[in-house]
């Protein structure tokens, strides 16, 4: 049963070959067992899940089931879930039971999905390896000495290991796409504003975007249908009408104009990765797409810009974790200053503190113009460059990550190299564009993802391309040994 994707499970449930409760029990058991190896869940929530499964069965029996009723899902532990611990991978929120549901969670609950648990992640989504989690690293099911990527590493590993057919992720600089690439699954980062951020614990508000992590593009489209749309509780959510994301999946891609930025394929890229991406693009050419080289010279600046903008916002967003109202509070504070310093000093991990300090610095009087303001200007340049490129081509294709999954501890003491693992993904967040990472090949037994970047609100097109690609390739069907 675990091998089935959403589209297949829906059939099984609707035909009552299995009930949602039975399916949920199977999934819970498998999750509990395998989680001991992979550490991809922070919480598994059997009571919650079985309650939802019962409701799903009622709906199915009444003939009121929707396309996601009874389907198991895992939520990244960054999404607030009413009555369930929402830790954001941090000691700071280890004791935090959210009193409300994030909009994404609410929508998926309303769609009848069954939440199995909350997935592990880098602390406050700051990391590219899932090693900064207070709950320990997640292991990559393809090689348990390696990281699953991050920050949505738990979600990626859970989907790759066939624990759940779908998990939610969030992407601030690549946190859906990079782990999707490293774990061999499909990860869509929608246009900024397409998915409500309400109830999604903020890291960098102008960059954060939630999205689905699935095995197939078709499943991603089904989830998008449930979560996309304007939310009056999020002023930055887009009012553009929502399309049926499944409607265009099978459209022809003949005549599709693909741009390959030469900067994405320069000497810094692992040549094997470059070869895999070019082979992937060839598959699309076979389906009628045309390819041309483009240039995105500003993309070189995206990492430094990102590491000014994101820490600046995070330094302010994380100020509310002060030990006063919720979350971790130090023992026996002497006075207010001691309460602040020790609660935050003890509650946050190293990477989070590093970014809070960077962010505080770049916003300080005397440095603001040189860092924050300048970064915002370059950010506009990067966005304009993408806009221009996307007026000439339909999509931009390149690698998702510079290499396959790296070893645990390999980069932990080398933050710069760690930061560079997001080099192909962060510029997309800076521009607010949608992008999808899909499995496109294997390197040394490890999956490699291909990134397809589209214009604003072009998610249907991206899903269409990804779906057509998955119809002619098998990479997304490969399962890690021992998990198939």
């Amino acid at each position, binding site marked *: 049963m675990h091998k089935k994707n959403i589209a297949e499970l829906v059939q099984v449930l609707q035909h009552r070959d299995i009930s949602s409760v039975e399916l949920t029990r199977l999934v819970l058991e498998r999750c509990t067992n395998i989680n001991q190896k992979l550490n991809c869940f922070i919480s598994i929530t059997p009571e919650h899940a079985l309650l939802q499964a019962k409701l799903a069965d009622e709906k199915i029996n009444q003939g009121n089931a929707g396309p996601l009723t009874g389907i198991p899902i895992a939520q990244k532990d960054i*999404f*607030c879930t009413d009555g369930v611990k*929402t830790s*954001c991978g941090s000691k700071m*929120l280890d004791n*935090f039971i*959210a*009193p*409300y549901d*994030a909009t994404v969670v609410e929508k998926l609950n309303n769609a009848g999905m069954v939440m199995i648990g909350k997935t592990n992640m880098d602390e406050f989504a700051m990391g590219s390896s899932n090693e900064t989690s207070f709950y320990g690293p997640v292991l990559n099911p393809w090689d348990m000495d390696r990281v699953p990527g991050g920050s949505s590493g738990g979600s990626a590993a859970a989907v790759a290991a066939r624990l759940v057919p779908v998990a939610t992720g969030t992407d601030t600089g690549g946190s859906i796409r990079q782990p999707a690439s490293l774990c061999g699954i499909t990860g869509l980062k929608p246009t900024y504003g397409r998915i409500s*951020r*309400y*109830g*999604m*614990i*903020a890291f*960098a*508000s*102008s960059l954060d975007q939630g999205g689905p992590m699935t095995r197939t593009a078709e499943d991603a489209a089904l989830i998008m249908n449930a979560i996309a749309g304007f939310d*009056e*509780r*999020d*002023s*930055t959510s887009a009012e553009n009408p929502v399309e049926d994301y499944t409607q265009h999946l099978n459209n022809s891609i003949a005549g599709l104009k693909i741009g390959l930025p030469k900067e994405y394929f320069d000497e810094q890229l692992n040549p094997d990765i470059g070869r895999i991406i070019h082979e992937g693009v060839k598959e699309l050419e076979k389906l009628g797409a045309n390819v041309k080289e483009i240039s995105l010279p500003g993309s070189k600046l995206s990492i430094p810009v990102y590491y000014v903008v994101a820490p*600046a*916002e995070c*330094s*302010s967003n*994380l*100020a*509310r*974790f*002060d030990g*006063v*109202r*919720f*979350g971790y509070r130090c023992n026996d504070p002497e006075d*207010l200053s001691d309460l*602040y310093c020790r609660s935050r000093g003890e509650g946050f991990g190293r990477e989070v503190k590093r970014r809070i300090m960077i962010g*505080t610095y770049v*916003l*300080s*009087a005397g440095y*603001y113009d040189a860092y*924050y303001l300048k970064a915002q200007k370059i950010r506009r340049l990067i966005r304009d460059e993408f806009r221009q490129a996307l007026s000439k081509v339909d999509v931009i294709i390149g690698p998702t990550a510079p290499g396959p999954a790296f070893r645990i501890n390999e980069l932990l003491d080398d933050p710069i190299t760690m930061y560079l693992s997001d080099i192909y993904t962060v510029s997309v967040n800076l521009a607010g564009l949608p992008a999808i990472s899909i499995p496109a090949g294997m390197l040394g037994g490890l999956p490699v993802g291909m990134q397809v970047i589209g214009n604003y609100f072009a998610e249907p097109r991206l899903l269409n391309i990804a779906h057509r690609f998955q119809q002619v390739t098998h990479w997304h069907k490969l399962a890690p040994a021992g998990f198939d």
Partner: protein
Amino acid sequence: MEWETVIGLEIHAQLATRSKIFSGAATVYGAEANVQACAVDLGLPGVLPVLNAKVVEMAIRFGLAVNAEIPSRSVFARKNYFYPDLPKGYQISQYEHPIVSKGRIDIKLEDGSTKTIGITRAHLEEDAGKSVHEGFGNFTGIDLNRAGTPLIEIVSEPDMRSAKEAVAYMKKIHSIVRYLEICDGNMQEGSFRCDANVSIRPKGQKEFGTRSELKNLNSFKFVELAINHEVERQIDILESGGKVIQETRLYDPNKNETRSMRSKEEANDYRYFPDPDLLPVEIDKETIERIRSTLPELPDAKKQRFMDEYRLSEYDSEILTANKDMAAYFEKAIQSADGEAKLCANWIMGDLSAVLNRENRDIMESPVTPEMLGGLILRIKDNTISSKIAKEIFEAMWDGEGDAGTIIEKKGLRQVTDAGAIEKLVDEVIVESPAQVEQYQNSTPEKQGKLIGYFVGQIMKKSQGKANPEQVNELLINKLKTD
């Protein structure tokens, strides 16, 4: 040396919305602690602010009322600092792009001249919560009911030169926000409060002196006392060879003194940056014009109209129009008083204001309605009652005994204007007072003017105040004449 005082004010006015600036929680004053704080106000992880459209409209109303420019785009920014009653660790405010930019208002000085005070800007922001230091042992209680309450901060130019000017400016702003119905102006509840930037310089010097910022000025009286105290303090320092340091000082009304809170060196670096959770506010010309068309008549215009239309003095008009409710009361009273403007003005500024002050009540909740006061004035005008009796009737109306007509009938207070009846009383008194009559008749005309008061008093006593004093006077003079 002669010193010149330079003052600029930052006024915080709480906008009279039902819900908070970025959440749906209620803003009612005085609720049980923390019952009006929702997830957004608590700054829970994951929550986001949504701007209350009402506050934007209110801010624009204010901007238009003070002749200010309304920029087409304004931006919310985060002001970052840690404080226990600041739930998010930052306050959402406006920094580089406020909703209201340069404006100005006129104030009246004591010598009767008019002075224009510049308004630098006005911006929207959220209020913080409240720390409660009593009743929690070694802990501090936090009440977040007020967190997220909408405020407009109105920043003046350093145009004021005395505490009196500062108070006049503050009163004018107070009057305007109440006219606009964007703030209830309640200073006890903190809905209208101000900080003052105060410095002094040798008269004639162009450069400003070093300023101090006085916090916690929540009444007109405290503004005046605190500024005057601060000016003296600065003069003392400079005249004894010292230097004023730039600092924030807290005014203590109990001791009438200011004390240092923090110096410039200790000041927070607020690390302002645009709030990425909120879109810039775009305001088009049509919106501004639509709002302009809904503006009420403002104090200056109303004052001029009172002078033109009712022939009132500038002084009376100024007092009557300073408070919108009083002006409305006046205009209603006039309608019931057959246009007797001056009498209405006198009664409202005199007896009515006195009793309202005494009972600490708002004119809107006066038991004597404008219609009742107008009715009373009509009875004075048509000689049914004397002014003196009118005061008695007014007190009775205040005590809820009905309108003037009812009270006059019930108490038999109708003025005696029957000449025969009055003449009878006059004759009685003359017969009863031979000594006074003799003294009167042997006096010079000037002295007679004073002595006649005795006879009038006696007659009024006999008539229980109901005799028409003018008629009494006339008859007396005639009867006491020695031709």
